[in-house]
């Protein structure tokens, strides 16, 4: 078990080191792909193990006892997140190799991408707050490089905002962890719950707010969201797909941990309000923009709002819905950005004013866009519908009528803005491709120029559909995950006794 839990982090790091030593592009590609396959394989094994009996799996580094070691912990939530995250990272790597964008051909792309994957895995497995901070730093450092690797003016400008905001976030997080340590004498997540419970209310609340602000910046919740739609669209599509699909979700994951393990159910009204405002502000941005990537970036924010709203409601049903939402958002968001990448590579732009007639050029591309888009909007029978439906039902049970009404309205506008993309980009007159043959206006053949990109996007979309197919057992799984989250004592005793 120790190997299974640590290899998702160590494997990509070893690959990063090897990629720095070997500079041949094809060698780097092989190394990256191999290590992510190993990491994803370990994640599958961890998931299967945890799915079986639901027990919390623990690995300690260095053979040190208890809270002295770097602890990796996998409960149901971590296991499923790790699996989905590593699968997404692997598919995006294949896509990036197929895209052959200038940034991927830089000899720094692969090492940095590997470091980011390791950081993502570590953040999901971290068993103490400081380890979590280190994981955040690892993935943030790598994301700074990935965001600005092409070095265009636009990227540097947006990268500056991104770097400043995230350094601020790191600082807040570090201060928060320092204060937690000063108040309790530990940063181990299995020891914190009972030590935090002994603190005076004022101290608890301020520690809680510090952590929420730090994770809130990362998750791009209202009012700390503004950096996201500014910086993500400037990155190459494969990079913004990972950022969109994973980095904000890790912020939400940490918020879930904070709300269930460290400060169970506290400040939930605040979180509900923040969630609702995040939904609304995100959808307003999405409706008002005309560029595919910007629209999708604002959608990230509004969807984060749903998760935060669910987290604020609390209780078994709402947390289960939140976890379901979180897991399903990763492939949905990633695949939408991947489709956008194919569009902008083929047409040279993803502005809705310049792109049209894609459905005529390539019905398959239209399908690849439509399925995740409908899932994002929450239409049956897609998993997005199940996520939203269970969230709304939990909201009604908890008598959050206003929030539920807003959530449904926002959902409607999500559909509106997806239809906007559909009408502008996929209907209408077909335009010639900017790559391949000049006469490529032919009815078929857009994806023929982008086989690898199309395949990895298709695998991800199939994953979304599969999530709908296995929705029954999977919903049972997330309900179990929610029960596990709502019982911090089981987490604590499992980590301590291991």
């Amino acid at each position, binding site marked *: 078990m120790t190997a299974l839990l640590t290899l998702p982090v160590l494997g990509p*790091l070893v690959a990063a*080191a090897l990629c720095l030593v070997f500079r041949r592009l094809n060698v780097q590609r092989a190394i990256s792909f191999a290590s992510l396959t190993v990491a994803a394989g370990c994640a599958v094994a961890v998931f299967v193990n945890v799915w079986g009996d639901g027990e919390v799996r623990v690995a300690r580094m260095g053979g040190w006892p208890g809270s002295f070691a770097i602890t990796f912990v996998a409960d149901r939530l971590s296991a499923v997140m790790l699996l989905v995250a590593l699968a997404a990272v692997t598919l995006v790597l294949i896509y990036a190799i197929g895209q052959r964008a200038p940034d991927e051909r830089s000899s720094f792309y692969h090492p940095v991408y590997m470091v980011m994957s390791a950081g993502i895995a570590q953040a999901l497995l971290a068993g103490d707050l400081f380890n979590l901070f280190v994981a955040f730093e690892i993935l943030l450092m790598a994301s700074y490089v990935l965001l600005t690797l092409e070095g265009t003016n636009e990227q540097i400008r947006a990268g500056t905002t991104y770097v400043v905001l995230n350094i601020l976030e790191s600082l807040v997080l570090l201060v928060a962890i320092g204060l937690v340590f000063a108040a309790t004498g530990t940063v181990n997540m299995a020891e914190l719950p009972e030590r935090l419970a002994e603190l005076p209310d004022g101290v608890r609340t301020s520690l809680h707010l510090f952590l929420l602000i730090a994770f809130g910046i990362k998750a791009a919740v209202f009012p700390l969201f503004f950096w996201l739609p500014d910086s993500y669209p400037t990155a190459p599509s494969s990079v913004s797909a990972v950022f969109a699909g994973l980095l904000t979700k890790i912020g939400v994951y940490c918020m879930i941990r904070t709300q269930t393990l460290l400060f169970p159910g506290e400040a939930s009204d605040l979180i509900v309000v923040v969630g609702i405002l995040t939904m609304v502000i995100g959808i307003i941005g999405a409706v008002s923009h005309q560029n595919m990537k910007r629209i999708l970036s604002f959608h990230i924010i509004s969807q984060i709002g749903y998760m935060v709203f669910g987290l604020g409601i609390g209780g078994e049903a709402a947390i289960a819905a939140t976890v379901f939402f979180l897991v399903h958002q990763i492939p949905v968001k990633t695949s939408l950005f991947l489709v956008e990448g194919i569009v902008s590579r083929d047409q040279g732009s993803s502005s809705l004013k310049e792109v049209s007639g894609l459905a005529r050029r390539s019905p398959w591309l239209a399908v690849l866009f439509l399925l995740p888009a409908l899932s994002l909007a929450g239409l049956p029978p897609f998993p997005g519908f199940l996520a939203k439906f269970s969230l709304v039902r939990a909201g009604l049970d908890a008598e959050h009528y206003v929030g539920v009404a807003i959530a449904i309205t926002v959902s409607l506008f999500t559909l509106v803005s997806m239809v906007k993309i559909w009408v502008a980009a996929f209907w209408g007159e077909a335009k010639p491709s900017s790559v391949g043959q000049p006469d490529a206006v032919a009815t078929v053949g857009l994806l023929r120029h982008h086989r690898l990109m199309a395949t990895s996007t298709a695998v991800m979309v199939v994953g979304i559909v599969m999530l709908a197919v296995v929705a029954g057992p999977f919903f049972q799984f997330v309900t179990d995950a929610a029960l596990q989250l709502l019982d911090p004592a089981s987490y604590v005793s499992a980590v301590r006794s291991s």
Partner: protein
Amino acid sequence: MNFRPSAILDELVDRWLSKVAVLVAVYVTFRGHNAPGGGFAGGLVVGGVFVLQFLTGREPHIRHRPIRRPTLLLGFGLLVALVTTVIPLVVDASPLESHIWKLNVPFIGEVKVVSSMFFDLGVFFVVVAVVLMVLLSLGARGESLVGDDGVGAS
């Protein structure tokens, strides 16, 4: 770089201080297991030598010496550290767990070698490489590092 070399500083730094500093760095690195020091501190001392060379008005020697590509050194250091981390998994211990060998070296006596020393050496190389990369990209001729690795061509 068209700085005019300053003869006295140049002489001092290159002839004397560099060698002493490297010795100090080796000492600092190896005492790291039980006393203050270690790979990070040792790497910084060596990095300091390169910074001093740079401050005397010349490009650091690296361009003409074995370490022309700091990324290679970075990768090598990282690899050494990570291999030390992963090897315990093979023998069914937890990652980063260290093993202690006691060797009898003639004339010196018993020497304690800890496997985490290799981790420290890896860190040492990483730190040196990072200092070199900073110097090369921010200090001397920025484009030489950039050109070498093919980034920022656009």
